[in-house]
Every structure is written in structure tokens, then in C-alpha cells.
């Protein structure tokens, strides 16, 4: 059985889903944290594309191999940890299609994070929550094929949904604006997936090993800041 190292900053960010996959998949892993101002600049050039996260796979014979780019890491771990709907190329691609659509929704909020004034940020987040999110989630709700996205088996698609829910909690719980909660009546199947994951290993990860106390949502300023 291999073990894994997740190389990233001490924040959920773009490593959250892969850590969740490792936890839910019962894999042995450690976090190798990088500090943005100190250790990161020294190792940036050692990363294949100058970016993190990096996943190091440590085989039982001690050999190591590195994988970069969060979408590639997530696809790899989902397959290696039996969190894909099935073994065929099509089944795996369908799971990737759900993740891709949710990632597109996730990316749409990033612009709001960087708007220069507080009023602009608040307004952009409000529009995102009330208009953009439901437009995307309506297709997600329609896609769900059972208790989970792909029927009876929990997969990376369900975990991606939960990871997005958690990020919304980071940003919106203080203002009661998490669209998954505000619009819960419109998305019952998605809500049920989140509630079920919250009660199991994914929820335990979220509460105990997802946040490292270094960054947080600044509720006065509507941005993430170091603590």
C-alpha cells in the first residue's frame, strides 16, 4: 500500500479535495506544509509547473513519484482509492465531468475575492450566491442518480460537492449566506449528499484536519486573511 505526501500551504485551498479523498479513502498521508514567504520561493522551481499542490506517492519499496496539478491529482487519487463510479474510461470521465462543472462554478467566485473595495466585494458575493450558484446547481441536482451522484456508491463527485459546500461555509457562514443552506429547498438531492457526508469521515476531516489555523475569513473585510 502506498503512502502519500500532500505538498501545499497550511490552508484547504487547492489541496482540500485531495486531502478529503485520502481521508475518506483510508490512505496513509502526511501534509508537507510550505510557507508562502519563506520555504515556498526556495522550492517553487522544483515543481514541474512552478505551482503547488504536489502529491508525492511513496510506494512500499520506498520509491517516490510526484504528480502535479490539482485536477490530475484528484483524478489519480479517486481512481487509486476506489472513489470513481467504475473502472471504465467512460465512468471515470463522467465523474470528471461533474467535478469540472462544479470547479467552473467555484472559479466564478474568485473574481469577487479580489475586487478592490468592500462594497464591491459584498455586492459581487451577493450576486454570486443568489444568481450564479442556483443556475449551476440546478443542473447538478438534475444529474444526481440515487443517494449519491452515481447511484449507490459514494464517489469523488460527491466529495467535490462537499468541498465546495465547505468553502462556501468558510466565506458565508458568518453572514448566513451559504447558498446550499439558503436554497436548500430547491436542491434536496444535493443537500442530502452534503448531510450524509457531514456525518461520516468527510465531516470528521472537515472539523478536525481541514483547517490549520493560519488563514481565515475576515468578516469585516470580506476576504481571506492570515491569522
Amino acid at each position, binding site marked *: 500500500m502506498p503512502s502519500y505526501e500532500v505538498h501545499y500551504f497550511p490552508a484547504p485551498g487547492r489541496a482540500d479535495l485531495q486531502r478529503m479523498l485520502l481521508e475518506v479513502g483510508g490512505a496513509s498521508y502526511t501534509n508537507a506544509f510550505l510557507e508562502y514567504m519563506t520555504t515556498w520561493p526556495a522550492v517553487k522551481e522544483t515543481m514541474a509547473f512552478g505551482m503547488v499542490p504536489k502529491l508525492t506517492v511513496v510506494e512500499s519499496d520506498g520509491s517516490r513519484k510526484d504528480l502535479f496539478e490539482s*485536477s490530475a491529482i484528484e483524478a*489519480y487519487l479517486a481512481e487509486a482509492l476506489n472513489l470513481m463510479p467504475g473502472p471504465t474510461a467512460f465512468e471515470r470521465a463522467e465523474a470528471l465531468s461533474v467535478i469540472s462543472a462544479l470547479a467552473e462554478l467555484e472559479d466564478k467566485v474568485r473574481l469577487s475575492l479580489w475586487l478592490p473595495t468592500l462594497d464591491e466585494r459584498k455586492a459581487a458575493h451577493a450576486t454570486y450566491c443568489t444568481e450564479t450558484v442556483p443556475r449551476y446547481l440546478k443542473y447538478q441536482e438534475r444529474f444526481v442518480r440515487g443517494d449519491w451522484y452515481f447511484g449507490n456508491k459514494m464517489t469523488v463527485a460527491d466529495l467535490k460537492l462537499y468541498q465546495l459546500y465547505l468553502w462556501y461555509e468558510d466565506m458565508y457562514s458568518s453572514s448566513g449566506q451559504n447558498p446550499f443552506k439558503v436554497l436548500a429547498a430547491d436542491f434536496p438531492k444535493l443537500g442530502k449528499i452534503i448531510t450524509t457526508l457531514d456525518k461520516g469521515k468527510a465531516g470528521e476531516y472537515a472539523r478536525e484536519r481541514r483547517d490549520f489555523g493560519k488563514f481565515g475569513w475576515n468578516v469585516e473585510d470580506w476576504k481571506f486573511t492570515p491569522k
Partner: protein
Amino acid sequence: MTTYELHYFNAAGRGDMSRLLLDFAGASYKNVLVQNADWGTKKDTTPFGKVPVLVIKEADGSTKELAESAAIEAYLAEVLGLVPGSSPFERAEALSVVSAFLDLEDKLRTASTGTTSEERKTAHEKALAETIPMYLKYQERFVRGSYYFGDKVTYADLKLYQIALKLEEMYGDSSPLKTKAADFPKLTKIVETLAAGKAGDYTKNHRIIGVLKWFKDEWKWGFAA
């Protein structure tokens, strides 16, 4: 024999790479072009309200569909033999190269979001001088042989080729792959080899540019009549 339909707008955009894979591999496929006027009706018939959508028709008559360009490209690469190997790690490594290029494409889209052509020009000039060469530097370092993964063409190489086409369309002779070709000998060789073969045939004979064009004085994409 499996046949494919690629449903997308009459444009290169997010359909180009899938068309290139199908064409390069000699798959039996057809383009179903979605006209802007028909999009309103079609949108909700797609899994996530978007195109491209790939329709797969198996020899036994069964049909299935796949949405999202990233998923379609990963799927086609695998079934058309355009991955480095069959193991999950090898497939993920190819995906990592493509993902880094998708990141670059996102940065170029952002450069066109400024509201004036002056802002957009400044953003694109910075991309040309700094961002694109930075991304290409890491790509050049990654290449492990005649192609990204040694001796065999994979969709990583074809993604580079598609990026080269896009940079040429946007920047012409100012494309960093031309102005800084000496810094990127391995990438240049891959693009030239592919251009001389089936990928070049696709570009000359089957590539759809359609109604979406780069307006160079405006520094953005737009619809041409």
C-alpha cells in the same frame, strides 16, 4: 465501430481540442454545430447547460453522452490511444500537462476582461513578455523525449499544438513560441512535427474557426458576421 458526434458552436473555442483528437486518431466523427439562435432551446438538453457535449454511438447501437471539455478530452485521449500508458498514474501525468496549459488559457482569458482596449492591450503585452514565456519554460523542461512522454504522441503534445494555433491566431508573429523559439527547442520541434503530419492536415482541412475570431486591435475575441 464506435462513432462520435461533437456538439459545439460554430467556433474553435472549447471544441477545438476534442475535434483535433478525433481527427488525429482517425476516429469516425461528425461535428454538430450549434447555431447561436438554437442555443436557447438546446441548452437545457445538455447535462450542465453547456457545450461541448460528446455523443458516443457504439457498434451495438447504444448511445451515451459526455459533457465538459476536460472530461471529453481525457476520455477521448484514453480510448483513442493518446495517453502515455494505461496506468492511472501515467494518464494523470498527461492530464497534469494539459491542466497547466488550461491554466495558461484562463490567464489569457482574464487578460481580455478589461473594459477598454488600452487595458486589454497592456494585459496582453504583459502576458506576451512574462506569463506565457514563464508557462512555456516549465513545459520545455518537462518534455521527456521527442514527445512529452518519450517516443509516442499523446494528448499532451496535441494540447501544445492547439495552444500554438491559438497563440498564432491571437498574436501572429509576436507569439512567444516564435519570438523566443530558441528558448523552447523541444516544444518547437513537437509543434513542427505535428504540423507536418495529421495535426497539420486537421488544421488545413477540418478545423472549424467559424464565427469566433480574435479582433487584434481590440485585444479580445468576438463574433464576426
